[in-house]
């Protein structure tokens, strides 16, 4: 492998509707899972990156509080935020800290405790994830941003509500057997279509739910990685892009421009293409987001993402299994933890640890993680020996 930075440990707390504990305690659960299988003591972690979207909680500057609780001080730590893709951005920074020689073992700690806010308060926070000067005064919501994408995709390609519902059906099949998911029931296309309209054309079951949760990724230099684990998972590609918060600057509404740019950059760095990817996690905050992600990641041509789900090509056993852990739609979406949870799933797939949802022989995996309504996208490509 042409990189010398590996993922050596991954952990995740259950995702909860209401966790009933402090954020630091939530992070401890994920951290313990991440270090338990490896030959590494907490004090060998020489830097950490705490990834979350502020304002969901009262604790300002969570990095010091959490690093202290996990026992990984006095190593440098900081808080990093790119909304919903904060911990994927954290992974990229952790890679650079190791690759630059500044550090050897870095922990990426993603968390969010959203349950302290009512769902309307959370929606108020979300609306301020857009441009507060030019968009928030109109009462924009995060579902509405993605609903606009759905409206454009439907107008241009004839995408239907039934096709969107099929994404949720797949999610629930895998969510049912993920014991860390919030939502663990199967539902039908009709259930989705009959659910309440939230923001046209997206209905209740087209949307993921807020959640409390934490996920931790531990990275190490190649030399240390080979010493502490038998199954290092290598970081091959790291693509990232940023675009205007104001929709007025949006180039296209039938896709997420940052996602296309980030995936191209990740493929270029990894030296492989979409056809080489064996398993993927994409940012399905809404059903339409998964369809568009198929296209932005190159798994389908523009407008043809719906065919992948119709033909069940993104199920286990299909051409490119996607979100076979239930995705955000079933797991829930604790903002800062989401990316690290996706990375954990792909790492476990490449290690062959996924039981019923294991993609046989998976060698290359991709994680697509979008921040806000397309302000940021981080795409990560991982591979095993």
């Amino acid at each position, binding site marked *: 492998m042409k990189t010398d930075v590996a993922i050596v440990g991954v952990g995740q707390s259950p995702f909860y509707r209401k966790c009933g504990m402090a954020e630091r305690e939530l992070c401890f659960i994920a951290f313990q899972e991440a270090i338990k299988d490896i030959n590494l003591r907490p004090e060998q972690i020489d830097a950490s990156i705490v990834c979350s979207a502020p304002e969901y909680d009262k604790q300002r500057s969570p990095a010091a509080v959490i690093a202290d609780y996990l026992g990984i001080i006095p190593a440098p730590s900081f808080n990093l935020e790119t909304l919903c893709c904060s911990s994927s951005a954290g992974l990229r920074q952790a890679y650079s800290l190791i690759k630059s020689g500044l550090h050897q073992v870095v922990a990426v700690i993603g968390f969010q405790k959203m349950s302290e806010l009512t769902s309307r308060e959370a929606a*108020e926070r979300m609306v301020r994830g857009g441009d507060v*000067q030019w968009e928030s005064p109109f*009462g924009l919501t995060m579902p509405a941003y993605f609903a606009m994408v759905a409206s454009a995709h439907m107008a241009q390609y004839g995408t239907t509500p039934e096709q969107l519902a099929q994404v949720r059906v797949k999610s629930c099949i895998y969510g049912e057997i993920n014991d860390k998911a919030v939502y663990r029931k199967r539902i039908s296309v009709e259930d989705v279509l009959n659910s309440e309209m939230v*923001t046209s054309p997206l209905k209740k079951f087209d949307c993921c739910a807020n959640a409390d949760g934490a996920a931790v990724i531990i990275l190490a230099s190649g030399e240390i990685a080979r010493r502490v684990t038998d199954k290092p998972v290598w970081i091959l590609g790291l693509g990232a892009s940023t675009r205007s918060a104001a929709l007025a600057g949006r180039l296209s*509404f039938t896709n997420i421009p940052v996602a296309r740019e980030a995936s191209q950059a990740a493929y270029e760095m990894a030296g492989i293409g979409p056809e080489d990817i064996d398993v993927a996690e994409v940012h399905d905050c809404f059903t339409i987001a998964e369809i568009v992600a198929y296209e932005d990641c190159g798994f389908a041509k523009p407008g043809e993402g719906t065919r992948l789900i119709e033909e069940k090509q993104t199920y286990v056993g299909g051409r490119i299994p996607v979100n076979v852990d239930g995705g955000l739609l079933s797991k829930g979406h604790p903002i800062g933890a989401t990316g690290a949870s996706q990375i954990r799933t792909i790492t476990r797939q490449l290690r062959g640890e996924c039981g019923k949802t294991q993609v046989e022989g998976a060698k290359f995996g991709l994680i697509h993680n979008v921040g806000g309504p397309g302000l940021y996208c981080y795409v990560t490509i991982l591979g095993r020996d």
Partner: protein
Amino acid sequence: MGFEKFGAVNFTSETKASDFVKFLEEGKVMTTKCTRCGKVYFPPRIDCCACGASEIEWIEIDEPGELVAYSTVMYGPTGFENDVPYTIAAVRFPKGIQVFGRISKKIPTDKIKVGMKLKVVPIKLDSDRVSYQFVQP
């Protein structure tokens, strides 16, 4: 100052582009054009990132544009609970101007289609507040 009168709920009061609100009060939706390099912006801004200058002129968005994307919001965030349903939209105008805003409630929801022609006009809201909305040309 002056910008706090923009929109039904406002989150920010200070910007060098607050003349935008003054123009809305005068009945015009205006945006900015860099007088040095000619770049046109929406949202309006006083600083040009293309050439570094901070000298602009205001131009009116008076031609019709085309609806690019929209959604009818049924569940409003804090401050907008009693305002639903409302339809948000992005409309593309000539000169590369794309505007985000709401479609007038006078247009029935089932008449809204991607590709339809819309123009942008100022509106007065409660208690002296102003905004703009999309209406049929």
